[in-house]
């Protein structure tokens, strides 16, 4: 009898009771000081545990653990299908801020912010006249190479219905960054953002391709050698990933 009763009090503390039972027990606790004290003691234990250890949730993941996670290769669609995981574990939507705190390093977080800001800047049609348009895109790439010693190969997205709108160099203190903007027949914009990492990445593991989505805006970012890339578009995560993976492959 004693154990059953304590179990009920625990169920109450741990929110394991149905609404009706919970109400019934709450009434009982209002009239029974001893049981109420026991419940309060259990709740105090839980609160103290959270107070003592919750800061671990907000600490950066230790480098060696993050490196381990980054080390696993990215499953291609075909390999996921073969392993039976791709279809059963579809790409999920991730909260950008949560990803930022848990998985992105500082640089990638900045890159995403820049990419989104650039996208919004152009999407709002408040932009300055682009530096290069249409046929002058090659000129932009030549100029970029001259400035940064990095040869850009601007991806053509014709097969996905997107054509180049314009490209421009973006101000970036520690390195060079640029953007190529695309538009499809329905007016949807797709921005490709790149950032040349002038400092040596050192021991940092390469940033594995990551796709994320928030508020109907999808972002795909990856690293190749000393250049970070991001694609931003108002389309589903799956559609953007298909385009981005075609480019990266």
């Amino acid at each position, binding site marked *: 009898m004693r154990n059953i009763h304590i179990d009920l009090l625990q169920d109450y503390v741990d929110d394991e009771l149905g609404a009706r039972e919970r109400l019934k027990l709450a009434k009982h606790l209002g009239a029974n000081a001893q049981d109420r004290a026991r419940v309060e003691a259990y709740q105090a234990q839980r609160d103290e*545990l959270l107070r003592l250890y919750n800061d671990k949730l907000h600490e950066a993941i230790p480098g060696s653990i993050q490196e381990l996670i980054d080390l696993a290769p990215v499953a291609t669609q075909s390999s996921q299908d073969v392993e039976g995981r791709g279809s059963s574990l579809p790409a999920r939507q991730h909260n950008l801020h949560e990803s930022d705190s848990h998985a992105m390093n500082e640089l990638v977080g900045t890159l995403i912010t820049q990419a989104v800001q650039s996208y919004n800047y152009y999407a709002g049609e408040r932009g300055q006249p682009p530096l290069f348009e249409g046929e002058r895109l090659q000129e932009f790439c030549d100029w970029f190479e001259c400035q940064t010693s990095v040869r850009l190969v601007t991806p053509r997205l014709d097969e996905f219905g997107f054509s180049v709108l314009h490209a421009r160099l973006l101000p970036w203190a520690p390195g060079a960054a640029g953007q190529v903007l695309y538009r499809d027949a329905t007016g949807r914009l797709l921005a490709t953002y790149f950032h040349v990492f002038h400092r040596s990445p050192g021991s940092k593991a390469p940033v594995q391709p*990551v796709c994320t989505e928030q508020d109907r805006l999808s972002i795909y970012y990856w690293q190749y050698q000393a250049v970070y890339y991001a694609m931003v578009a108002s389309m589903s995560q799956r559609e953007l990933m298909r385009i981005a993976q075609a480019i990266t492959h």
Partner: protein
Amino acid sequence: MSTNPTDIGSMDLPAISNGLRADIAAAVPHLRRYAHALLPIGGGALEADDLVQSAVERALLRIETLRPESNVRVWMLAILHNIYVDRVRRQRREREALGRLSDTGAKSVPARAIVSLQVSELSAALTKLPWEQKEVVLLIGLEGLPYVEAAEVLGIPVGTVRSRLSRGREALRTMLGSEGDREVR
């Protein structure tokens, strides 16, 4: 208790989807919180992170055992639990072996230097709980798992979770000097 550092670069890990990678990364802070609370005071943050790293490594190597409907955090906590239990049992065997050596007059191994720590009463009380009860108290009280998921992590029936939780919480209440009549009508 620290294991030999793994040569991460030489590991041959299976491919995972980006969604799964993000889920694993999102579970790591929870694993760290749990591991830091689980290990004895003075055990050191390095040991807790070593435990977490071992769990992540095993999870990545055995990714095919993750069922599609599984909660990644629960699955990884279960892996961490198994590694922890292995280490607790191994330590127990080592202590017993050391005890036998002491009985035969062998030179004793110096104890770990006692570190002066400012710890809360609850942290101190937790170290006195049997590890089986401590795990249940932490999984439910700290990680907020439902009883069913705690049972899944520990590989025990829900009824056992309830009884361990009950004993653990009551022991903590006694150690923390809670007043009140223990008689339950």
